[in-house]
């Protein structure tokens, strides 16, 4: 009898870690609809989606990192830096292609630095990326000369603000990137390796996986994703903003964890993280619609983070504690 109960507890935890966020999304939608009549209007929902688009892109990379047992706190700075780089290169050369390319390369280099120190040198990713967060932010200001640089090319603006047949381009990009990420995480050896490394790095190593290289690669990909997010961000604001992108990494982490990605690694998936990002976006939107004081909004958000982390710990414990001791 007791055994059955504990088994049921496990399956609930397992279910939650897989689909719980969908339930939360539905609840958020219902609550939103009750609290504000304009919430369910299409234009409002589209604006929510547009608002979280850049977060969603970063969350894809963040989920990959969390699954692999890492984290990146420099993501927001990286986004700002790359948006500035894009604006600077575009304004001095007039070439969109060159601007985009240099921005992506810069993102990759920052990712590579994070990866090198976290993986090959073995420092804590938390500290490494905190250091790059500051450094990169400083560099962004230096390159921009301390002020926003206005004007990026029309095609970049189109990526951030345009519509395709009434459908926001940004959302389309999020969709495509999610599909690509799902493919990589579930159908390539690289994805499998990341899950294994996050779940148990020693076992991964003992299975012949080049753990350090895979972790390094993961950070480089995160850097490229941040570079890409920086381009979209520049498109949305039609500028390179050295002061932009603040706390984007936390938005991404909250979304991922709310989506059931474990901070301890090895568990999670990209789709749920994206849903988690949307949930956070909806909570923000509803609070705005109800014109809740901005300070209270921060309080609420902090509580949401706490709940998300509690859920993470609860599910992981429930799943892992059932280890039979023999």
């Amino acid at each position: 009898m007791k055994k059955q109960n504990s088994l049921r507890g496990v399956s609930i935890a397992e279910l939650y870690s897989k689909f719980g966020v969908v339930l939360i999304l539905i609840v958020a939608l219902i609550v939103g609809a009750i609290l504000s009549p304009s919430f369910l209007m299409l234009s409002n929902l589209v604006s929510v989606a547009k608002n979280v688009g850049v977060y969603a892109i970063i969350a894809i990379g963040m989920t990959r990192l969390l699954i692999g047992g890492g984290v990146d706190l420099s993501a927001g700075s990286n986004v700002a830096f790359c948006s500035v780089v894009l604006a600077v290169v575009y304004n001095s050369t007039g070439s969109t292609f060159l601007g985009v390319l240099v921005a992506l390369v810069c993102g990759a280099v920052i990712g590579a630095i994070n990866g090198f120190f976290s993986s090959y040198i073995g420092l804590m990713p938390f500290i490494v990326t905190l250091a790059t967060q500051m450094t990169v932010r400083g560099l962004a200001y230096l390159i921009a000369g301390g002020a926003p640089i206005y004007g990026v090319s029309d095609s970049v603006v189109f990526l951030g603000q345009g519509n395709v047949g009434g459908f926001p381009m940004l959302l389309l990009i999020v969709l495509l990137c999610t599909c690509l990420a799902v493919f990589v995480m579930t159908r390539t050896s690289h994805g499998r390796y990341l899950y294994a490394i996050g779940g148990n790095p020693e076992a991964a190593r003992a299975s012949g996986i080049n753990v350090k290289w895979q972790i390094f690669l993961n950070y480089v990909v995160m850097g490229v994703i941040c570079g890409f997010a920086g381009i979209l961000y520049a498109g949305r604001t039609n500028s390179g903003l050295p002061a932009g992108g603040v706390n984007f990494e936390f938005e991404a982490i909250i979304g991922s964890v709310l989506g059931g990605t474990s901070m301890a690694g090895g568990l999670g998936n990209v789709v749920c993280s994206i849903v988690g990002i949307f949930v956070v976006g909806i909570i923000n939107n509803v609070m705005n619609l109800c014109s809740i004081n901005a300070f209270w909004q921060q309080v609420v958000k902090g509580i949401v983070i706490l709940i998300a982390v509690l859920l993470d710990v609860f599910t992981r414990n429930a799943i892992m504690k059932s280890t039979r001791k023999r």
Partner: protein
Amino acid sequence: MIPISTILKMRNISKSFPGVKALDNVSIEVEQGTVHALMGENGAGKSTLMKVLFGQYAADSGEILFEGQPVRFKSVKEAVSHGISMIYQELSPIRELSIAENVFVGRYPKLKGGAIDWRAMYVACQEIFDRWGLSYDPRTKMKQLKTADVQMIEIIKAISFQAKLVIMDEPTSSISQNEVEKLFTFIRALKKEAITIIIITHKLDEVFEISDRVSVLRDGKFIGTKGIGELNRAQMIKMMVGREMNSVFPKKESSYGNVLLEVRHLNCGPKVQDISFELHFGEILGFAGIVGAGRTETMRSIFGLDRRSSGEILMDGEEIGLQSVRDAIKHDIVMATESRKDDGLVLCRSVEENIMLPSLYRRSKCGVLNLGEERRIAEKSSKKLKVKASSLSTMANFLSGGNQQKLILCKWLLMNPRVLILDEPTRGIDVGAKWEIYNIIVDLAKQGVGVIFVSSEMEEIINISDRILVMCDGHINGCLQKGEITQEKIMNLASEVWS
């Protein structure tokens, strides 16, 4: 002359775990001011008994008398406050702090107002060292000390708590011969002060050197307590081994082919010293020895998990220059590691993912997996080894120990190895699963696979192996051919100190 009295009495202690009777009506008496050796094979129940004493496990039945008073400790801390301390095999000092800080941690002498009186602490520590004739500087950082010294400090710490009974778990397993002498001198000094020592060890020589009385456990049962004078080596081994060999083991003709793998002068840290051996086609080569003899370390360095400092590994007579695990796998050398939890499985991932993990790189095309084929392969291999799991997507964590062990075998057998290294493949699993694993091993050997079988269980290693190498202190101490293998011979080789 101190009158001899019984300091510790454990009476009719029983303790069961699901499926195992770890302690079966064990009674033991320890006399004050003696060194009492507690012996037995791995899994005989020694550590369980000590955990019951310290309250880490609650006994199902039985009582404990300390200095004549019935006690039932709820925590290690409570036991310590009554004067019982334990020195664990794995020491965990606070490495960045000084010796004195480690000795007094949690009870620093205080000045008025609550600040720590550092001077008084160092003086007090120095006093203890002077009293016992030890030449440590209380201000030395713990991290500068060697394992043996850390152990001494741990003992000092225990004594400074007014310990009357000090229990040492395998204190000599990771220290050198000279250091053992130093430790024993110290133990004798303690004895003179009427402090009682229980020493848990596998090394027979040391038992004869240091202890006054010996108690033996076997399979959770108390076998007996004898004065050291009443026993010789052979009698002691008999007490420890005792049982008849009556289980059925799969039969295999003890024949094997040419040399498949040759290891020459392998060195890797203190536990792998100048290891040389040959493994033949279709041979099951047992590696026996006590825990900590360096068998796991040897295997890890062959497999590329630890970088060897020197030595050659030859396959089919050619040096293959192994550097990493991937290199070893590419040469069809695989190793099922000792611990399921630490480096065997990714417990939070599915059965299928675990099975496929090492072979992904072979089966994927440009990194892209073929999920359908993968599922078929995983299904086939898990059926072949009779892995009991509700589905292939079940988390490995939900499987029983035996099935997890089979999962590890599954993942490596998929690689079609030519050399299969198994490190304690049957540890902690039940008899049925063990038997199935023996069968798999013997089948593989019949197909020409060279199997290296590391095990601490005498019975299985004797019955499965064609040849046994016995390791002790990082060296290969001897080789026994099938037919001449006996438990006594293995024990002798395993406990002989390398000189």
